Every structure is written in structure tokens, then in C-alpha cells.
């Protein structure tokens, strides 16, 4: 199954370690070949350059079939995880010996399960309250939820790591769950947008023929599909 955020794949500076955006945060994929010293130096560069790693995102280490030494794990813990207060969600390995070592450490070794909508309301970071309309060419990007008390005109853009609520008309682009979060929503007082995005899912086949066009809507991502419902309060 292709991951919805594969377009955000970022090769590390060395080209060896891969970073993938995912619903839960970042997946760091280590190559199966190459020395551990080189990987450690690549990680140093990566943490120096990749600002996304400094955010409070969950990280999954995926060692694939690589045999990882205890020394390497110790260096990961001391030089990166503890010193940078990283939030490691899981350590994944296909190598039996490495997996045994990881399990003996008592860390999670399975695939992380993203939180699904419906289980609890999710907010991320602070909400941004915008008591005005956004005109064409104006762009808002925010870590957290965004509330626009006004219109988002054609050509304006709102990007939020959380949910987006537009009190007035949504004619421009709204992208909720910018960091890959799939359990966020887009709400519009009047929906006339040609495209909407949640997480890594893009829906562009929108148009005035839709029955909820020009009406208040709530848009969610369910089973990897964007679902639009007329909002009746």
C-alpha cells in the first residue's frame, strides 16, 4: 500500500538515510549497507540541517534488515535521542539479533498505529485566530488549528498541522494535517473550493455539480478518502 505522504520523502544529505513523512510523524529508514560510523556522521548532518526533526514529532527508526550493534544503539540514545529529547515511537528491525537486542531494551518494536478520528478530538499546538478574510495570494501556515473569521478567497492558502475552520466562504486552498496528521478536519461556512487536502490526501475533483457545493460542510479523511458532509447545526 502506498503511503499517502510519500511525496514528502526526503533523502538525507548523504543520500543514505531516508526520511519519510507519515501519519504519526517521521520514519527514518537506515540503509542495510555502509559503516555505522558513516551513519552516525550522516545523522549529525541531518540533525543540523533538517529543521523538521527539531519539532515535537514522533520518530520511527526503521533499520530494515541491517544488523545494528549495541554500540550504535547506545550512540543513538546518548548523542541524539536523550540530548535532543526525541520522541521515538518505535524501533523496527527485520534482523533477528537486532530485534532481540531491541526487545531486551524494552522499547516498542512494532509498526506505530496512528490515532484515528472518532476516538478523541485532536488539537495540535496553539490555535491561530484570524479575524479577517484572506485575499488571493495571501498564505497562512500554522502549527496547530486555524480559525478564519472571514472568507478564504480564490488564490488564498491556509496550511495547518491541525484542523481548519473557515467561518465564511472557502474558495481557496485549505490543507489540514500538514504534518501528515489524518485525523484533522476542514470546516467551511460555505464551500466553493476547487481543491482541499487533509494529511497527504488531495481531492481535486470538486466542482459546482456537487450537492453540497455552496453549503456549510465538514470534511474528514476516512479510510484514505476525503469525505464531505453537509454541516447541519
Amino acid at each position: 500500500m502506498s503511503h499517502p505522504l510519500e511525496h514528502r520523502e526526503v533523502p538525507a544529505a548523504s543520500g543514505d538515510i531516508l526520511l519519510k513523512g507519515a501519519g504519526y510523524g517521521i520514519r527514518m529508514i537506515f540503509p542495510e549497507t555502509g559503516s555505522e560510523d558513516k551513519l552516525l556522521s550522516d545523522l549529525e548532518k541531518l540533525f543540523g540541517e533538517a529543521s523538521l526533526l527539531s519539532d515535537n514529532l514522533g520518530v520511527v527508526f526503521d533499520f530494515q534488515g541491517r544488523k545494528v550493534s549495541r554500540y550504535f544503539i547506545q550512540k543513538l540514545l546518548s548523542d541524539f535521542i536523550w540530548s535532543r529529547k526525541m520522541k521515538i515511537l518505535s524501533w523496527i528491525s527485520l534482523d533477528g539479533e537486532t530485534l532481540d537486542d531491541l526487545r531486551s531494551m524494552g522499547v516498542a518494536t512494532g509498526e506505530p498505529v496512528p490515532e484515528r478520528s472518532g476516538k478523541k478530538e485532536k488539537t495540535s499546538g496553539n490555535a491561530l485566530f484570524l479575524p479577517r478574510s484572506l485575499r488571493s495570494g495571501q498564505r497562512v501556515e500554522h502549527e496547530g488549528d486555524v480559525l478564519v473569521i472571514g472568507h478564504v478567497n480564490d488564490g488564498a492558502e491556509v496550511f495547518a498541522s491541525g484542523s481548519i475552520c473557515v467561518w465564511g466562504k472557502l474558495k481557496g486552498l485549505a490543507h489540514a494535517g500538514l504534518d501528515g496528521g489524518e485525523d484533522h478536519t476542514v470546516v467551511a461556512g460555505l464551500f466553493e473550493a476547487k481543491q482541499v487536502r487533509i494529511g497527504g490526501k488531495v481531492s481535486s475533483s470538486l466542482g459546482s455539480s456537487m450537492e453540497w457545493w455552496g453549503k456549510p460542510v465538514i470534511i474528514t479523511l476516512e479510510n484514505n478518502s476525503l469525505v464531505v458532509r453537509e454541516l447541519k447545526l
Partner: protein
Amino acid sequence: MDPRVIVITSGKGGVGKTTTTSNISVALARAGHKVVAVDADIGLRNLDVVMGLENRVVYNFIDVLEGTCRLNQALVRDKRVDNLFLLPAAQTRTKDAVSADQMEELCGMLRKEFDFILLDSPAGIESGFRNASIGADEALVITTPEVPAVRDADRIIGLLESMGKSPIRLVINRLRSRLVKQGEMLDVRDVLDILAIDLVGIVPEDDSVVKSANRGEPLTFGDSAPAAQAFQRIASRILGETVPFPDFSEEQGRGFFAGIRKFFGRKE
């Protein structure tokens, strides 16, 4: 009165900035104010042609800024009406020939001489637009009732707001009420709903605009054409007068055949 510097802009090209600038300049001058129309579209100057003054252009405002000539040498006086002047742009230079500081300096010089300084901005949102707008206090945004033009106007309004221009007022140009009636064109309410700024004028589609541009004779030198009357009303509103907006849907079907239909009581 304090001098007023007004930029006429649109974002999209071809919506009527130069036509509006020339006609409002004439109307304000005819109302007794000392007016200069500045062609701020360096490299693509048109205002001199539309105003019928191209054969009298010797210097341009770049020459003034570079010290090649004095301001009054570059100003072209329109002999058809008192107190109307044109300050042309250079046709052989590019937008990069002036800086924002120089344009502010130019506006400062013009403020000492004129009641109204109307700046005809180039299309686009780049340095030409920014330089044209930098020295202005207020703005007239021109749009036609078409989706791309309205979107570009929205973009320009956002930029003007961020530059602190006030008031920013809207002119809806080339309204064709027959198309509006057929649902093929945005109506005035649609445009205002999107742009959410004060409306200062609606100019109906009028063939005489094309003829006047080709002749170099702004319509507001006469009073009969529907577009001329619309530009006159805009000038009056700029001067602070309260002028009602006519219902252009009533103007459909003007002319000989409409007269006959009216005579026989037929409805379309």
C-alpha cells in the same frame, strides 16, 4: 485642499486602467482641479496616446529623476482643458530604471504643484506596480466582471492593504448587463461580495471607449456616451459628492430597435 495621490491599478492587464486614468483626469480637471496624469508604466507607455498627447512628449519622468530636465519641462499640458497635465513614462527603459525611493521623491515634487496626482500603474504585482503605488495615498482598483480579473484584483487589494493605502476603492469596468442577465457574467453584487471594498463606479461596456482611445480623445471631453457619464460620476464621487448608481439593466436594448419595441409595447 491637500494634494491627493491616487494609484490606478488592477493586477490583470487590459481591464481599463489607462482609460480610467485618462477619463477621470479630464473629468477632475474640468471640475476645476489641477491634475497630473502620470504614466507609471515604464517601457510600455500608453497614456500619452490615449490622451492624444504623444506628439508633444519630449521628456519623461525618468529624465526628471536623473536630472536631465526639470519637472515642468517634462510635464505636457493638455490644451483642451485648463489645469490638466501628463507626465509621460520612458518608452525605451525598463521598470528597473527607477527605485521606490525615486518614485516617492517624484510624488513629493508633484504634490507641491497639483491637487490630484493620478498614477497609471502597470499590470502585474512586481516592481512596476510597487513603484507606482509607493508614493500614493489612496488607490482605485479596476476590474472587469470576469473571474480571472476579479481574482487578480483581490490579490492587488491585499497588497495595497499591506502597503497601508486608504481608501482602496473599486471600479467595475466593461459591465455587460445582457450577459449578467443570462448568468454568463458576474454581476456587481458578486464582485463586491468577493472583493469587499467600497465601490466608486460602474462603467458599462461602450464601443465609444475604443473609438476615443484610437482618436486620443478621452470620452469625458464630451458628455453623451454612457461610459463618459460613468467616468464623470466616478470623478464626482472621488470629489466626495454623493452620486447614485444607475441601474444598468435598464440600459439594455437602447437604440432604434429598442425604441420600436417600446413603441409597440413588446417585451424582449
